[in-house]
């Protein structure tokens, strides 16, 4: 998969307490679009094939894009008329006006397809271009088969604190259905290597609900992940995305379509197994040892700000969203020509921002402040509370464990009826 997942988060069971970045600090997302091959269910922006030249060009383009974005300052990414500078809690801001950043996430693609020195160089470039908190969470995504000990040491030396491994499953037959090429045992080796290299937190991604997967397969995958002592697990229901080989196989009837009820059962199994291992669910698809939640991903769900670099990446700053061009070639050409690789942008209306806060906030176990989403359809709240799906204290709306698997349907119900014009 091109594991893109900017989401994975994991934490190595760190023996020492992890110091958390300042809550609310913005993040930086860097997209590395290369994969050894495209997995059958993947619709992410990835470039496959051994295109060494494109990789070298990317290694040069990312720091160049970073430097341009950093120099332009927050006014260039904020909506026109917005304050621009987000005052960091301690009041610190650099010359261009940037607040201190609390997280970096290098996702893909498979970032570890880059040479370790090059990848480390990208990480260092972020720290050079932007003010980064000393305790910033710096995550790199990796496929198990691409992780080797020496590379990890190089990354840790560059400041990487988290490794997010795309394990997906510990069942060989499920991996085969998904079109994954790594060996089951490579996950364990990768985790061991990460710990040895001093990566503070390790996370694994798992996928459930793959056609042909049995309850027992899923249970075993969870047990093995837990057995590796990882501090963070992301469990994703397999989604059949249009325009993937997988979707075509479903359409032709070669594999059965996704069964929502089966996926719901697997989700419940995940919660039970992971909770028993001391991993607390903090979002629909994410579990962590207390304190090892991903700061970067929480920024997404709390309506926070982040910069976006690399092909097809999406950024957000105070209600303005923008996104880079998707094809790697066009991205590289734009940066190399000294221009901005931005494909488009939108400034959200107040109503749209409330909608986004609602749909992302309800995904988290902490829920969402009422003030951030008001008005909602109050008439629905009582019924949802009575059904045991929602908790409504005066300050926040949050979903119960029964409500989390229905977060999207509940968000839809809570959206207020649009005023008629």
């Amino acid at each position, binding site marked *: 998969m091109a594991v893109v997942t900017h*989401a994975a988060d994991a934490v190595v069971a760190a023996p020492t307490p992890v110091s958390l970045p300042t809550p609310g600090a913005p993040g930086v997302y860097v997209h590395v679009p290369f994969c050894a091959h495209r997995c059958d269910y993947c619709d992410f922006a990835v470039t496959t094939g051994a295109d060494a030249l494109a990789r070298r060009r990317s290694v040069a383009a990312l720091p160049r894009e970073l430097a341009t974005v950093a120099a332009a300052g927050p006014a260039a990414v904020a909506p026109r008329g917005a304050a621009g500078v987000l005052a960091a809690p301690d009041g610190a801001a650099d010359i261009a006006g940037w607040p201190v950043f609390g997280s970096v996430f290098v996702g893909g693609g498979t970032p570890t397809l880059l040479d370790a020195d090059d990848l480390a160089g990208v990480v260092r470039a972020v720290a050079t271009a932007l003010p980064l908190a000393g305790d910033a969470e710096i995550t790199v995504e990796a496929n198990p088969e691409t992780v080797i000990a020496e590379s990890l040491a190089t990354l840790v030396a560059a400041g990487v604190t988290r490794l997010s491994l795309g394990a997906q499953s510990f069942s060989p037959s499920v991996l085969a259905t998904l079109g994954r090429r790594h060996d089951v045992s490579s996950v364990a080796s990768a985790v061991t290597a990460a710990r040895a290299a001093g990566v503070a937190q390790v996370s694994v991604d798992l996928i459930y609900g793959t056609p042909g997967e049995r309850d027992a397969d899923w249970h075993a995958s969870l047990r093995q992940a837990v057995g590796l002592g990882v501090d963070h697990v992301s469990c994703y229901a397999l989604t059949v995305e249009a325009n993937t080989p997988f979707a075509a196989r479903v359409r032709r009837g070669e594999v059965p379509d996704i069964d929502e009820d089966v996926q*719901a059962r697997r989700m419940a199994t995940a919660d039970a197994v992971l909770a028993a291992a001391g991993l607390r669910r903090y979002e*629909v698809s994410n579990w962590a040892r207390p304190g090892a939640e991903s700061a970067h991903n929480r920024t997404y769900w709390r309506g926070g700000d982040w910069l976006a670099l690399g092909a097809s990446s*999406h950024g957000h700053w105070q209600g303005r969203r923008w996104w880079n061009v998707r094809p790697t070639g066009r991205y590289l050409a734009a940066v190399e020509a000294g221009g901005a690789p931005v494909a488009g942008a939108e400034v959200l209306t107040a109503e749209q921002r409330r909608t986004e806060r609602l749909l992302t906030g309800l995904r988290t176990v902490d829920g969402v402040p009422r003030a951030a989403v008001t008005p909602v359809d109050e008439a629905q709240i009582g019924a949802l509370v009575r059904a045991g799906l929602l908790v409504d204290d005066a300050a926040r709306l949050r979903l119960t464990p029964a409500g989390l698997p*229905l*977060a999207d349907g509940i968000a839809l119900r809570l959206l207020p009826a649009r005023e008629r014009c």
Partner: protein
Amino acid sequence: MTYPIERIRNFAIIAHVDHGKSTLADRMLQATKLVDARDMREQYLDRMDIERERGITIKAQAVRMPYEASDGSEYLLNLIDTPGHVDFSYEVSRAMNACEGAILLVDAAQGVQAQTVANLYVAIEAGLEVVPVLNKIDLPAARPEEVAEEVAALLGGDPADILAVSAKTGQGVPEVLERIVAHVPAPRGDVDGPPRGLVFDSVFDPYRGVITFVRIIDGILRPDTHIRLMATGFHNGIDELGVISPEPRPVDALGPGEVGYFTAAIKAVELAKVGDTVTDHVRPAPQPLPGYREPTPMVFSGLYPVDSADFPDLRDALEKLRLNDASFTFEPETSVALGFGFRCGFLGLLHMEIISERLDREFDIPLVTTAPNVAYEVHLDERTLKPNEPRVVTVSNPAELPAPNRIDHLLEPVVDAMVLCPSEYVGAVMQLCERRRGELAKMDYLSEQRVELRYTLPLGEIIFDFFDRLKSSTRGYASLDYEPAGMRRSKLVKVDILLNGEPVDAFSAIVHADKSYEYGKAMVSKLRELIPRQLFDVPIQAAIGGKIISRETVKARRKDVLAKCYGGDITRKRKLLERQKEGKKRMKSVGAVEIPQEAFVAALSVGGD
């Protein structure tokens, strides 16, 4: 100048749907040289979009065709094109009364159909001279000899005298015109008496007000006549007096036997109703023409806006539609489940479909239409009467049926139905009619192959899907016609539907006691298919007077969430949510349950056959 009455011929065409009525009319327009080939278009006389799309005639039309007959004289042929459907039988009868003759047009392949026979009886009752004509004789499947025998059996006479045409090619059409001139009697009337004209149609025009179509019986209408409509009392000066030939054209007089139209700043068709008599306000006729009656709605349905904020728009739309259709009625009603809406009365199912389609097409208001039902006469138990409460009440909304312990007995409307079908399907038709509580009144063989069955059937049993079932059980060969036959006492009960424990009044139905369990069960299982899974379990129950007779559950969705929601996913998800929210506008929320519009009507196709 009025036209010499002895050279006027007024006639209608009686035909089954698709037997070629509009095509024959088109050929007549050409044969009389009223329309040349260059200006010809199909269904020339049908003006409404719905008429052209469905190939049916809803409004009557009259066209004046001067024709030079083979005897060397010019005659005035007035073709009055009538709707053929059973829903509009009153309109058909008025149009027939405006004529002296009728062409009985029968498809030479399909033979005589029930609707044709029913309309033929109307024509005979109106004293019309009937000219039988076989159509589509150019078709390979045509069997003119057999069909001519069938027609002769109905009408008497020699099969050999029956004219044969191809309306498609025009073959035989001049002979039909000659036959009309020779056989259809000229009208009679008193040219000097006070004017009396029969209104056989009226059409609303937003610029000129109502255009009223009229056949003059006595006297003369002139452009300066101050007319009065005798049933409604409306009176005003004429704005325009004219004829359709084939486009509207003003004339300076309409005398006895002539057919034309007038406008008089009439604001709604209910002021100029079909069957009314137009006279001179200053010198009125002492008596109106016989046969006028108020349109009687037979089928009722609740119309509710999906979005309750659309209620005022729906009221405006209904008022506008009523400007050009006086035969449908509406009054506000409130449903616990659906909020504010209207109970509408229609002449029949086709009429209801036409109105709903026009609301959708012309006004674009998303609607919930409840299942159609008939009006019941409820005789209350004397002992339960409150002061001043009438003993007999009419209920056109099942939800309003009084509690069972207050009802002494119920009457339901019945119809005399006629079914014509090939003899091999008699068994299937009888089975269907008996399941619908029909009582066989009569069975006749029209020929060795064709049978006429007459049944008394509850109207409530045939309004929904009876015709479809009839067609499917006879491979499309059976045809149906019916007319109201009063009220009949029946053992009826109300079946209520509860969602989530709450009764949904819009789903209540009145059904025969013997079929109530079967109905409740079928309805519950149909609703289980139609209601999508929601965030909660939705129990569906059927109940009679508080007793639950059936129950099923729409299981709650167990998962409805995107697996990943990071960076770029958020915009995609928001847009999806916004689209879904738009989609919800097509759903009606009843309590916490979201019900798709189509459930309210589709659920009724549970028929029980």
